[in-house]
């Protein structure tokens, strides 16, 4: 090292840009692109699957009508479970007893 000029000349002397860098960049970019496409494809597939199974469509409660027979049956079951039909039953039995006594 003799003078500053040598120092700065040496500072600027670096090896050539290795060719392998671009190949690696290209490979990484392709892999990332492939990965994002795969993620998008899976997401799209998921949305389509949800769509076809009807999960995505939110139905309003009054969109559906239930037949009166089913309503009556459900009401009966509900009354039985809740015990609200007991009074009516007592009345029926009472009437039955009165009728049999007569």
């Amino acid at each position, binding site marked *: *090292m003799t*003078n*500053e000029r*040598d*120092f*700065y*000349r*040496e*500072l*600027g*002397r*670096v*090896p050539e*840009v*290795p060719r*392998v*860098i*671009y190949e*690696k*960049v*290209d490979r*990484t*970019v392709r892999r*990332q692109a492939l990965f994002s496409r795969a993620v998008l494809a899976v997401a799209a597939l998921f949305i389509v699957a949800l769509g076809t199974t009807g999960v995505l469509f939110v139905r309003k409660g009054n969109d559906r009508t239930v037949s009166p027979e089913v309503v009556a049956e459900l009401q009966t079951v509900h009354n039985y479970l809740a015990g609200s039909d007991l009074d009516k039953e007592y009345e029926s039995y009472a009437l039955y007893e009165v009728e049999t006594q007569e």
Partner: protein
Amino acid sequence: MVDCDRVTLEQAAQGDEKAFRRLYDHYAPFVWRIVYRTSGSDHETAQEIVQETFVRIHRSLKSFNGSSSLGTWIYRIAFNAAQNFVAKLVRYRETTRPLADDEPDSRFPADTYEASEAVKKVLDGLTAEDRFLLVAKEVDGLTFEEIAAISGKSPESLRTRMSRMKEKIRTFVNGTLLPLEATS
């Protein structure tokens, strides 16, 4: 600092591989030089940083809004990547013993070994920012304004730092061998 043309930039942002290759060929030599010197002249490490830099550039090209020149933007990414690496390296060296590296670098001919060792010693005594400043200014001829746009420092402070750094380098190469310290 001559920028790549607008058409190449737009084509590369649209995913044109040839345009991205042109962009790479245009900026890679400078990015390589800066990263190589900033990261301590380690071939493998510099390769990894440059690779990471261009992968980031490719990913972010669409979001480049033109608020600065493309070159400034690219060099900022490279500068940040190199700086992050150096910070990690410093932390690593603080927790482990320093690597013995007294063997001559086989990539350089014997007669330039002394010069390359002097450069290495000088760079080892500088911060990543100062290394970047030194190479960008003295090797690639960037203006203080351009370096300021990349590093986020004011041109005035860069001028002062450069002046101090050159003084220390002058002292060093003139044989007094004073240890170099960060100029900031």
